Protein backbone atom coordinates (compact mmCIF):
# COMPACT_ATOMS: atom_id res chain seq x y z
CA UNK A 1 0.00 0.00 0.00
CA UNK A 2 2.85 2.37 0.92
CA UNK A 3 6.33 2.03 -0.48
CA UNK A 4 9.13 4.29 0.72
CA UNK A 5 12.03 4.58 -1.70
CA UNK A 6 15.24 6.23 -0.48
CA UNK A 7 13.29 8.68 1.65
CA UNK A 8 15.13 11.28 3.68
CA UNK A 9 13.78 14.13 5.78
CA UNK A 10 16.18 16.69 7.24
CA UNK A 11 18.67 14.85 9.42
CA UNK A 12 15.85 12.94 11.10
CA UNK A 13 15.10 10.20 8.62
CA UNK A 14 17.01 8.28 5.98
CA UNK A 15 15.08 5.18 4.93
CA UNK A 16 16.32 3.10 2.03
CA UNK A 17 13.25 0.94 1.67
CA UNK A 18 10.04 0.28 3.60
CA UNK A 19 6.67 -1.29 2.80
CA UNK A 20 3.29 -1.06 4.45
CA UNK A 21 0.92 -3.74 3.30
CA UNK A 22 -2.79 -3.23 2.80
CA UNK A 23 -5.05 -4.76 5.44
CA UNK A 24 -2.10 -5.48 7.74
CA UNK A 25 -0.91 -4.08 11.03
CA UNK A 26 2.55 -2.56 10.87
CA UNK A 27 4.31 -1.58 14.08
CA UNK A 28 7.16 0.89 14.32
CA UNK A 29 9.32 0.51 17.38
CA UNK A 30 12.61 1.93 18.57
CA UNK A 31 14.06 4.52 20.89
CA UNK A 32 12.37 7.89 21.07
CA UNK A 33 13.74 10.52 18.71
CA UNK A 34 14.57 7.84 16.17
CA UNK A 35 12.17 9.14 13.51
CA UNK A 36 9.10 6.89 14.00
CA UNK A 37 6.64 9.79 14.28
CA UNK A 38 8.17 11.43 11.21
CA UNK A 39 7.39 8.29 9.20
CA UNK A 40 3.72 8.59 10.17
CA UNK A 41 3.63 12.27 9.28
CA UNK A 42 5.19 11.53 5.90
CA UNK A 43 2.57 8.85 5.24
CA UNK A 44 -0.20 11.31 6.20
CA UNK A 45 1.43 13.97 3.99
CA UNK A 46 1.67 16.28 6.98
CA UNK A 47 5.32 16.43 5.91
CA UNK A 48 6.96 15.75 2.58
CA UNK A 49 10.35 14.07 2.10
CA UNK A 50 13.34 16.16 1.11
CA UNK A 51 14.54 13.36 -1.13
CA UNK A 52 13.18 10.08 -2.39
CA UNK A 53 9.55 9.26 -2.94
CA UNK A 54 6.65 7.56 -1.26
CA UNK A 55 4.16 5.56 -3.29
CA UNK A 56 0.58 5.09 -2.11
CA UNK A 57 -1.23 2.36 -4.00
CA UNK A 58 1.44 2.67 -6.69
CA UNK A 59 1.08 6.44 -7.12
CA UNK A 60 3.67 9.01 -6.10
CA UNK A 61 2.20 10.72 -3.04
CA UNK A 62 3.61 14.05 -4.19
CA UNK A 63 1.05 14.01 -6.98
CA UNK A 64 -1.91 13.25 -4.72
CA UNK A 65 -4.22 15.90 -3.34
CA UNK A 66 -3.06 16.35 0.25
CA UNK A 67 -6.46 16.96 1.83
CA UNK A 68 -8.15 14.06 0.04
CA UNK A 69 -5.23 11.83 1.04
CA UNK A 70 -5.45 12.82 4.71
CA UNK A 71 -9.18 12.07 4.75
CA UNK A 72 -8.34 8.52 3.79
CA UNK A 73 -5.05 8.06 5.61
CA UNK A 74 -5.80 9.35 9.08
CA UNK A 75 -3.12 10.35 11.55
CA UNK A 76 -3.61 10.27 15.30
CA UNK A 77 -1.07 12.35 17.16
CA UNK A 78 0.56 11.12 20.36
CA UNK A 79 -0.56 14.31 22.06
CA UNK A 80 -3.82 15.05 20.28
CA UNK A 81 -5.31 18.49 20.44
CA UNK A 82 -8.90 18.90 21.53
CA UNK A 83 -10.85 21.84 20.21
CA UNK A 84 -12.86 24.25 22.34
CA UNK A 85 -16.26 22.89 23.29
CA UNK A 86 -17.79 19.67 24.48
CA UNK A 87 -16.91 16.02 23.95
CA UNK A 88 -19.68 15.85 21.34
CA UNK A 89 -18.43 18.90 19.46
CA UNK A 90 -14.95 17.40 19.31
CA UNK A 91 -16.32 14.16 17.90
CA UNK A 92 -18.40 15.95 15.26
CA UNK A 93 -15.53 18.25 14.32
CA UNK A 94 -13.70 15.52 12.43
CA UNK A 95 -16.84 14.76 10.42
CA UNK A 96 -17.22 18.48 9.68
CA UNK A 97 -13.66 18.61 8.36
CA UNK A 98 -14.48 15.68 6.06
CA UNK A 99 -17.70 17.34 4.90
CA UNK A 100 -19.52 14.26 6.14
CA UNK A 101 -22.96 14.47 7.72
CA UNK A 102 -23.02 14.62 11.50
CA UNK A 103 -24.07 11.44 13.30
CA UNK A 104 -26.61 10.89 16.05
CA UNK A 105 -25.85 11.08 19.76
CA UNK A 106 -26.45 7.31 20.00
CA UNK A 107 -23.67 6.62 17.50
CA UNK A 108 -21.36 8.96 19.38
CA UNK A 109 -22.17 7.38 22.74
CA UNK A 110 -21.55 3.91 21.30
CA UNK A 111 -18.19 5.05 20.00
CA UNK A 112 -17.26 6.47 23.40
CA UNK A 113 -18.15 3.13 25.02
CA UNK A 114 -16.13 1.32 22.36
CA UNK A 115 -12.97 3.22 23.28
CA UNK A 116 -13.77 2.97 27.01
CA UNK A 117 -14.43 6.65 27.66
CA UNK A 118 -17.08 7.13 30.30
CA UNK A 119 -17.94 10.78 29.76
CA UNK A 120 -21.13 12.59 28.94
CA UNK A 121 -21.30 13.99 25.42
CA UNK A 122 -22.06 17.40 26.94
CA UNK A 123 -18.95 17.36 29.15
CA UNK A 124 -16.42 20.12 28.41
CA UNK A 125 -13.47 18.61 26.56
CA UNK A 126 -10.95 20.72 28.45
CA UNK A 127 -11.76 18.87 31.69
CA UNK A 128 -10.49 15.53 30.35
CA UNK A 129 -7.35 13.88 31.71
CA UNK A 130 -4.44 12.87 29.46
CA UNK A 131 -5.72 9.31 29.05
CA UNK A 132 -9.27 10.51 28.38
CA UNK A 133 -7.99 12.93 25.75
CA UNK A 134 -6.32 10.04 23.94
CA UNK A 135 -9.52 7.96 24.06
CA UNK A 136 -11.63 10.85 22.79
CA UNK A 137 -9.14 11.55 20.00
CA UNK A 138 -9.22 7.86 19.07
CA UNK A 139 -13.02 7.89 18.97
CA UNK A 140 -12.88 11.02 16.81
CA UNK A 141 -10.68 9.40 14.17
CA UNK A 142 -12.51 6.05 14.18
CA UNK A 143 -15.74 7.90 13.32
CA UNK A 144 -14.06 9.12 10.15
CA UNK A 145 -13.88 5.60 8.74
CA UNK A 146 -10.60 6.00 6.87
CA UNK A 147 -8.89 3.20 4.96
CA UNK A 148 -5.60 3.63 6.77
CA UNK A 149 -4.88 4.64 10.35
CA UNK A 150 -1.54 6.03 11.46
CA UNK A 151 -1.37 5.99 15.23
CA UNK A 152 1.44 7.50 17.21
CA UNK A 153 1.60 5.92 20.67
CA UNK A 154 -2.19 6.10 21.01
CA UNK A 155 -2.11 4.78 24.58
CA UNK A 156 0.98 6.46 25.99
CA UNK A 157 -0.92 8.37 28.68
CA UNK A 158 -2.70 5.29 30.06
CA UNK A 159 -1.90 2.82 32.81
CA UNK A 160 -0.95 -0.74 31.82
CA UNK A 161 -4.44 -2.22 32.02
CA UNK A 162 -6.08 0.64 30.11
CA UNK A 163 -3.30 0.58 27.57
CA UNK A 164 -3.88 -3.09 26.85
CA UNK A 165 -7.62 -2.45 26.47
CA UNK A 166 -7.05 0.42 24.04
CA UNK A 167 -4.46 -1.41 21.93
CA UNK A 168 -6.79 -4.42 21.72
CA UNK A 169 -9.64 -2.11 20.74
CA UNK A 170 -7.58 -0.60 17.95
CA UNK A 171 -6.44 -4.00 16.73
CA UNK A 172 -10.01 -5.33 16.91
CA UNK A 173 -11.33 -2.36 14.94
CA UNK A 174 -8.61 -2.74 12.31
CA UNK A 175 -9.14 -6.48 11.80
CA UNK A 176 -12.94 -6.42 11.87
CA UNK A 177 -13.18 -3.54 9.40
CA UNK A 178 -10.31 -4.69 7.18
CA UNK A 179 -8.35 -1.47 7.73
CA UNK A 180 -4.63 -0.87 7.43
CA UNK A 181 -2.87 0.22 10.60
CA UNK A 182 0.59 1.66 11.14
CA UNK A 183 1.23 2.12 14.82
CA UNK A 184 4.17 3.59 16.66
CA UNK A 185 4.58 1.94 20.02
CA UNK A 186 7.15 1.92 22.76
CA UNK A 187 6.18 -1.65 23.61
CA UNK A 188 7.99 -4.45 21.82
CA UNK A 189 5.47 -6.82 23.42
CA UNK A 190 2.44 -5.20 21.78
CA UNK A 191 4.30 -4.87 18.50
CA UNK A 192 5.29 -8.51 18.36
CA UNK A 193 1.99 -9.73 19.77
CA UNK A 194 -0.41 -7.85 17.51
CA UNK A 195 1.45 -6.60 14.44
CA UNK A 196 1.98 -8.45 11.18
CA UNK A 197 5.20 -6.61 10.44
CA UNK A 198 7.48 -4.86 12.91
CA UNK A 199 10.02 -2.26 11.83
CA UNK A 200 12.67 -1.24 14.31
CA UNK A 201 13.76 2.31 13.56
CA UNK A 202 16.98 3.65 14.98
CA UNK A 203 18.63 6.99 14.23
CA UNK A 204 16.29 7.50 11.31
CA UNK A 205 17.08 4.19 9.62
CA UNK A 206 15.34 0.83 9.47
CA UNK A 207 17.43 -1.39 11.68
CA UNK A 208 15.35 -4.54 11.61
CA UNK A 209 12.23 -5.93 9.91
CA UNK A 210 10.30 -8.79 11.49
CA UNK A 211 7.39 -10.56 9.84
CA UNK A 212 5.33 -11.85 12.75
CA UNK A 213 2.57 -13.67 10.91
Amino acid at each position, binding site marked *: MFTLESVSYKDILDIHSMHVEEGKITALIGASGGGKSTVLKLLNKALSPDEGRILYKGRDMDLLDSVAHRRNVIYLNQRPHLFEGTVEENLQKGLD*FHNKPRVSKDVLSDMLSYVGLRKQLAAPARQLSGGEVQRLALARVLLLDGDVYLMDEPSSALDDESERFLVETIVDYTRRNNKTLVMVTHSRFYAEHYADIVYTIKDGRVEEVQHER
Partner: protein
Amino acid sequence: MNGEVLELSIWQVLLGYVFVLLVLFILKKRAIKREKVVIIATLRMTVQLVLVGFVLTYIIENPHPFFTLGVLALMEGFAIFTVFRKFKDTLTPSLKRVVMISLPSGSLVVLAYFLFVVIQIEPFYDPQYFIPIAGMIIGNSMTGITLGINTMVNRFTDQKEAVMEALHLGATPKAAAHPIINESFDQSIMPTINNMLGMGIIFLPGMMTGQILSGVLPTLAILYQIGVMLGILGGVSLTTYLFLQLGYKTFFNNRAQLIDSNE
Protein backbone atom coordinates in the same frame (compact mmCIF):
# COMPACT_ATOMS: atom_id res chain seq x y z
CA MET B 1 -25.38 78.60 14.97
CA ASN B 2 -25.25 81.76 12.84
CA GLY B 3 -22.49 80.71 10.48
CA GLU B 4 -19.86 83.02 11.98
CA VAL B 5 -16.47 81.42 12.49
CA LEU B 6 -14.09 82.60 15.19
CA GLU B 7 -10.76 83.23 13.52
CA LEU B 8 -7.85 81.69 15.37
CA SER B 9 -4.56 83.55 15.30
CA ILE B 10 -1.13 81.91 15.48
CA TRP B 11 -0.64 83.50 18.90
CA GLN B 12 -3.84 81.92 20.19
CA VAL B 13 -2.75 78.49 18.88
CA LEU B 14 0.61 78.95 20.58
CA LEU B 15 -1.25 79.20 23.90
CA GLY B 16 -2.32 75.57 23.36
CA TYR B 17 1.28 74.43 23.66
CA VAL B 18 1.03 75.08 27.39
CA PHE B 19 -0.38 71.54 27.62
CA VAL B 20 2.84 70.15 26.16
CA LEU B 21 4.75 72.01 28.84
CA LEU B 22 2.41 70.48 31.41
CA VAL B 23 3.13 66.96 30.12
CA LEU B 24 6.88 67.63 30.10
CA PHE B 25 6.65 68.89 33.68
CA ILE B 26 4.83 65.73 34.81
CA LEU B 27 7.32 63.48 32.98
CA LYS B 28 10.25 65.32 34.55
CA LYS B 29 8.75 65.20 38.03
CA ARG B 30 7.92 61.47 37.76
CA ALA B 31 11.30 60.72 36.14
CA ILE B 32 9.57 59.08 33.17
CA LYS B 33 11.96 59.20 30.26
CA ARG B 34 9.55 60.21 27.54
CA GLU B 35 10.37 63.88 27.10
CA LYS B 36 12.17 63.34 23.79
CA VAL B 37 9.31 61.52 22.11
CA VAL B 38 6.76 64.08 23.36
CA ILE B 39 8.82 66.91 21.90
CA ILE B 40 9.34 65.06 18.61
CA ALA B 41 5.64 64.17 18.39
CA THR B 42 4.65 67.79 19.04
CA LEU B 43 7.06 69.12 16.44
CA ARG B 44 6.08 66.52 13.85
CA MET B 45 2.37 67.09 14.41
CA THR B 46 2.84 70.84 13.99
CA VAL B 47 5.10 70.71 10.93
CA GLN B 48 3.05 67.98 9.21
CA LEU B 49 -0.24 69.80 9.72
CA VAL B 50 1.17 73.17 8.63
CA LEU B 51 2.55 71.57 5.48
CA VAL B 52 -0.61 69.66 4.70
CA GLY B 53 -2.62 72.83 5.34
CA PHE B 54 -0.68 74.72 2.67
CA VAL B 55 -0.75 71.79 0.25
CA LEU B 56 -4.49 71.21 0.67
CA THR B 57 -5.22 74.92 0.34
CA TYR B 58 -3.33 74.95 -2.95
CA ILE B 59 -5.02 71.79 -4.19
CA ILE B 60 -8.52 72.95 -3.23
CA GLU B 61 -7.96 76.35 -4.84
CA ASN B 62 -6.53 74.72 -7.97
CA PRO B 63 -8.54 71.52 -8.38
CA HIS B 64 -7.07 69.06 -10.87
CA PRO B 65 -7.50 65.27 -11.19
CA PHE B 66 -3.73 64.82 -11.20
CA PHE B 67 -3.40 66.47 -7.78
CA THR B 68 -6.33 64.58 -6.23
CA LEU B 69 -5.27 61.20 -7.53
CA GLY B 70 -1.66 61.96 -6.62
CA VAL B 71 -2.66 62.64 -3.01
CA LEU B 72 -4.76 59.45 -3.04
CA ALA B 73 -1.79 57.41 -4.27
CA LEU B 74 0.42 58.99 -1.61
CA MET B 75 -2.10 58.13 1.11
CA GLU B 76 -2.35 54.50 -0.02
CA GLY B 77 1.42 54.23 -0.35
CA PHE B 78 2.03 55.73 3.05
CA ALA B 79 -0.61 53.47 4.64
CA ILE B 80 1.08 50.38 3.15
CA PHE B 81 4.49 51.64 4.22
CA THR B 82 3.21 52.25 7.77
CA VAL B 83 1.90 48.66 7.99
CA PHE B 84 5.21 47.29 6.67
CA ARG B 85 7.18 49.34 9.17
CA LYS B 86 5.01 48.26 12.08
CA PHE B 87 5.46 44.58 11.25
CA LYS B 88 8.93 44.70 9.74
CA ASP B 89 10.01 41.51 11.54
CA THR B 90 6.82 39.49 11.14
CA LEU B 91 5.53 40.14 7.63
CA THR B 92 6.69 37.56 5.11
CA PRO B 93 7.14 38.71 1.50
CA SER B 94 3.94 36.92 0.51
CA LEU B 95 1.97 38.55 3.35
CA LYS B 96 3.37 41.93 2.27
CA ARG B 97 2.00 41.29 -1.21
CA VAL B 98 -1.40 40.54 0.31
CA VAL B 99 -1.31 43.88 2.18
CA MET B 100 -0.40 45.66 -1.06
CA ILE B 101 -3.41 44.12 -2.78
CA SER B 102 -6.05 44.20 -0.06
CA LEU B 103 -5.45 47.65 1.48
CA PRO B 104 -5.82 49.68 -1.73
CA SER B 105 -8.52 47.51 -3.29
CA GLY B 106 -10.73 47.34 -0.18
CA SER B 107 -10.45 51.03 0.64
CA LEU B 108 -10.80 52.23 -2.97
CA VAL B 109 -13.98 50.26 -3.62
CA VAL B 110 -15.62 51.77 -0.53
CA LEU B 111 -14.25 55.23 -1.29
CA ALA B 112 -15.57 55.13 -4.85
CA TYR B 113 -18.98 53.97 -3.66
CA PHE B 114 -19.14 56.67 -1.01
CA LEU B 115 -17.98 59.54 -3.24
CA PHE B 116 -19.78 58.69 -6.46
CA VAL B 117 -22.92 56.88 -5.29
CA VAL B 118 -23.65 58.24 -1.82
CA ILE B 119 -22.63 61.92 -1.91
CA GLN B 120 -22.21 62.12 -5.72
CA ILE B 121 -19.39 64.66 -5.91
CA GLU B 122 -18.95 66.64 -9.09
CA PRO B 123 -16.36 66.78 -10.60
CA PHE B 124 -15.14 63.34 -9.52
CA TYR B 125 -11.82 64.72 -8.31
CA ASP B 126 -13.26 67.54 -6.18
CA PRO B 127 -10.46 67.69 -3.59
CA GLN B 128 -12.58 69.35 -0.89
CA TYR B 129 -14.53 66.10 -0.45
CA PHE B 130 -12.29 63.53 -2.07
CA ILE B 131 -9.17 64.03 0.02
CA PRO B 132 -10.53 64.25 3.59
CA ILE B 133 -12.94 61.33 3.06
CA ALA B 134 -10.21 59.25 1.41
CA GLY B 135 -7.96 59.99 4.38
CA MET B 136 -10.54 58.80 6.88
CA ILE B 137 -11.39 55.61 5.00
CA ILE B 138 -7.78 54.69 4.18
CA GLY B 139 -6.55 55.55 7.68
CA ASN B 140 -9.17 53.45 9.39
CA SER B 141 -8.71 50.60 6.91
CA MET B 142 -5.02 50.66 7.73
CA THR B 143 -5.79 50.40 11.43
CA GLY B 144 -8.17 47.51 10.74
CA ILE B 145 -5.64 45.60 8.68
CA THR B 146 -3.00 46.22 11.35
CA LEU B 147 -5.22 44.62 13.98
CA GLY B 148 -5.99 41.77 11.58
CA ILE B 149 -2.31 41.07 10.93
CA ASN B 150 -1.50 41.20 14.62
CA THR B 151 -4.21 38.72 15.58
CA MET B 152 -3.63 36.39 12.66
CA VAL B 153 0.14 36.17 13.06
CA ASN B 154 -0.17 35.63 16.82
CA ARG B 155 -2.86 32.97 16.48
CA PHE B 156 -0.99 31.03 13.82
CA THR B 157 1.80 30.82 16.39
CA ASP B 158 -0.07 30.12 19.62
CA GLN B 159 -2.77 27.96 17.98
CA LYS B 160 -0.36 26.05 15.77
CA GLU B 161 -1.31 22.74 17.39
CA ALA B 162 -5.00 23.27 16.69
CA VAL B 163 -4.28 24.10 13.05
CA MET B 164 -2.01 21.04 12.70
CA GLU B 165 -4.61 18.80 14.33
CA ALA B 166 -7.29 20.03 11.95
CA LEU B 167 -5.02 19.36 8.97
CA HIS B 168 -4.21 15.86 10.26
CA LEU B 169 -7.93 15.22 10.53
CA GLY B 170 -8.42 16.10 6.87
CA ALA B 171 -9.43 19.75 7.10
CA THR B 172 -8.66 22.04 4.19
CA PRO B 173 -6.30 24.90 5.09
CA LYS B 174 -9.30 27.22 4.94
CA ALA B 175 -11.26 25.11 7.44
CA ALA B 176 -8.19 24.74 9.67
CA ALA B 177 -7.68 28.51 9.69
CA HIS B 178 -11.39 29.30 10.06
CA PRO B 179 -11.36 30.16 13.80
CA ILE B 180 -8.26 32.33 13.32
CA ILE B 181 -9.79 34.19 10.38
CA ASN B 182 -12.98 34.82 12.35
CA GLU B 183 -11.19 36.04 15.45
CA SER B 184 -8.91 38.29 13.40
CA PHE B 185 -11.88 39.84 11.61
CA ASP B 186 -13.68 40.36 14.90
CA GLN B 187 -10.63 42.05 16.44
CA SER B 188 -10.29 44.30 13.40
CA ILE B 189 -13.80 45.67 13.32
CA MET B 190 -14.44 45.91 17.07
CA PRO B 191 -12.78 49.33 17.58
CA THR B 192 -14.96 50.77 14.79
CA ILE B 193 -18.08 49.16 16.30
CA ASN B 194 -17.18 50.51 19.76
CA ASN B 195 -16.63 53.91 18.20
CA MET B 196 -20.09 53.80 16.70
CA LEU B 197 -21.61 52.75 20.02
CA GLY B 198 -20.15 55.71 21.89
CA MET B 199 -20.52 58.26 19.11
CA GLY B 200 -22.63 61.30 19.98
CA ILE B 201 -22.95 60.31 23.64
CA ILE B 202 -19.47 59.67 24.99
CA PHE B 203 -17.70 61.84 22.44
CA LEU B 204 -18.27 63.93 19.35
CA PRO B 205 -16.24 62.65 16.44
CA GLY B 206 -13.38 64.77 15.15
CA MET B 207 -14.78 65.40 11.70
CA MET B 208 -18.15 66.51 13.01
CA THR B 209 -16.51 68.69 15.65
CA GLY B 210 -14.35 70.27 12.97
CA GLN B 211 -17.34 71.00 10.78
CA ILE B 212 -19.32 72.53 13.63
CA LEU B 213 -16.34 74.70 14.64
CA SER B 214 -16.13 75.81 11.02
CA GLY B 215 -19.74 77.03 11.09
CA VAL B 216 -21.60 74.08 9.59
CA LEU B 217 -25.00 73.33 11.08
CA PRO B 218 -24.84 70.29 13.40
CA THR B 219 -27.80 68.75 11.56
CA LEU B 220 -25.76 68.74 8.34
CA ALA B 221 -22.57 67.77 10.15
CA ILE B 222 -24.20 64.64 11.59
CA LEU B 223 -25.37 63.55 8.14
CA TYR B 224 -21.79 63.67 6.90
CA GLN B 225 -20.57 62.00 10.05
CA ILE B 226 -23.06 59.13 9.76
CA GLY B 227 -22.15 58.65 6.11
CA VAL B 228 -18.44 58.74 6.76
CA MET B 229 -18.75 56.40 9.72
CA LEU B 230 -20.60 53.87 7.58
CA GLY B 231 -17.94 54.30 4.92
CA ILE B 232 -15.24 53.66 7.51
CA LEU B 233 -17.05 50.54 8.69
CA GLY B 234 -17.27 49.35 5.09
CA GLY B 235 -13.62 50.18 4.40
CA VAL B 236 -12.33 48.44 7.52
CA SER B 237 -14.53 45.39 6.94
CA LEU B 238 -13.82 44.95 3.24
CA THR B 239 -10.09 45.60 3.51
CA THR B 240 -9.65 43.27 6.45
CA TYR B 241 -11.86 40.59 4.92
CA LEU B 242 -9.83 40.66 1.70
CA PHE B 243 -6.60 40.60 3.65
CA LEU B 244 -7.64 37.63 5.80
CA GLN B 245 -9.10 35.65 2.89
CA LEU B 246 -5.85 36.01 0.97
CA GLY B 247 -3.52 36.20 3.95
CA TYR B 248 -4.26 32.86 5.61
CA LYS B 249 -3.10 31.08 2.45
CA THR B 250 0.43 32.39 2.95
CA PHE B 251 0.74 30.26 6.09
CA PHE B 252 0.34 27.06 4.05
CA ASN B 253 2.31 25.60 1.18
CA ASN B 254 0.85 24.07 -1.97
CA ARG B 255 0.75 20.66 -0.27
CA ALA B 256 -1.71 22.04 2.29
CA GLN B 257 0.98 21.85 4.97
CA LEU B 258 1.48 24.52 7.59
CA ILE B 259 4.67 26.34 6.62
CA ASP B 260 7.33 25.87 9.25
CA SER B 261 5.51 22.91 10.73
CA ASN B 262 8.87 21.21 10.99
CA GLU B 263 9.66 19.00 13.89
